[in-house]
């Protein structure tokens, strides 16, 4: 089950980083130890399945991606960087879900939240989940998908 969900997650993230932030993601991510966490965004979704996507950037990547998105050389303000983090999470989640359950499914995504750290956001224990770690710029992106519906059989992308 995790393998089935990891590929749509990776594909959606890779496309989003390239198209919105002009950054190429690799499946070889640097060791997270020693990397400063830039921020965590959580997007919860409801629809044929419901759950949450937890998205973390680390290694001083967020400022670079946000600057790329805005087309500026200087690092954006912390508020704009957080906004960029949330928008990246939102777009990745919105693009991943149709890949997972099909193009006719209707989902509702809630606004990204930033009040949970990685451990708190990933603290829910569910059987259906997927994880991807991507190398991006000189840092990494971690994506953890939690699907609260245990059985995805019958849904085909």
């Amino acid at each position, binding site marked *: 089950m995790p393998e089935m969900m990891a590929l749509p997650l990776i594909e959606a993230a890779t496309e989003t980083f390239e*198209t*919105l932030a002009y950054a190429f993601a690799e499946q070889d991510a640097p060791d997270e130890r020693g990397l400063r966490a830039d921020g965590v965004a959580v997007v919860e979704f409801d629809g044929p399945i419901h759950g949450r996507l937890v998205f973390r950037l680390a290694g001083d990547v967020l400022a670079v991606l946000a600057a790329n998105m*805005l087309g500026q050389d200087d690092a954006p303000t912390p508020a704009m960087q957080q906004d960029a983090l949330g*928008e990246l999470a939102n777009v990745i989640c*919105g693009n991943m*879900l149709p890949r997972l359950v099909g193009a006719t499914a*209707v989902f509702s995504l809630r*606004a990204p939240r930033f009040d949970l750290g990685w451990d708190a956001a990933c603290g829910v224990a569910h059987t259906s989940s997927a994880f991807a770690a991507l190398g991006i710029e000189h840092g990494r992106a971690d994506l953890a998908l939690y699907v609260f519906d245990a059985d995805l059989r019958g849904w085909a992308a």
Partner: protein
Amino acid sequence: MSINVLVVDDSAVMRAMLIRTLSLSGLPLADVHQAGNGAEALAILRARPIDLALVDINMPVMSGDELIDRVREDASLGALAIIVVSTEGSETRIASLTERGVSFIHKPFTPGQIRTTVLKVLGVTNA
């Protein structure tokens, strides 16, 4: 012909990206306005001459869906050119939007997609 544009998205970053893309695309822009939700957008639409609105769907206070309904119900605004810019991937919901005379650009978008769709919606053939 210069066009007045309204960009509606609860993300300031996304609004800035869209405005920058529009500015770099060679489109004949006049005034560009911003709104963070549908209610703010409606107020601007009733106060300013707007030729084109780029609208997100998932927003607080008033969603893009509700904004579109309110615009289409208003005789003074009903013909406004609207492009939804959203992560929405459901064919069902996209069909619902196009039935209301709305065009659609999927996030993540390329600058070329923005330009092409805007030109098509405005009926501009040589720009």
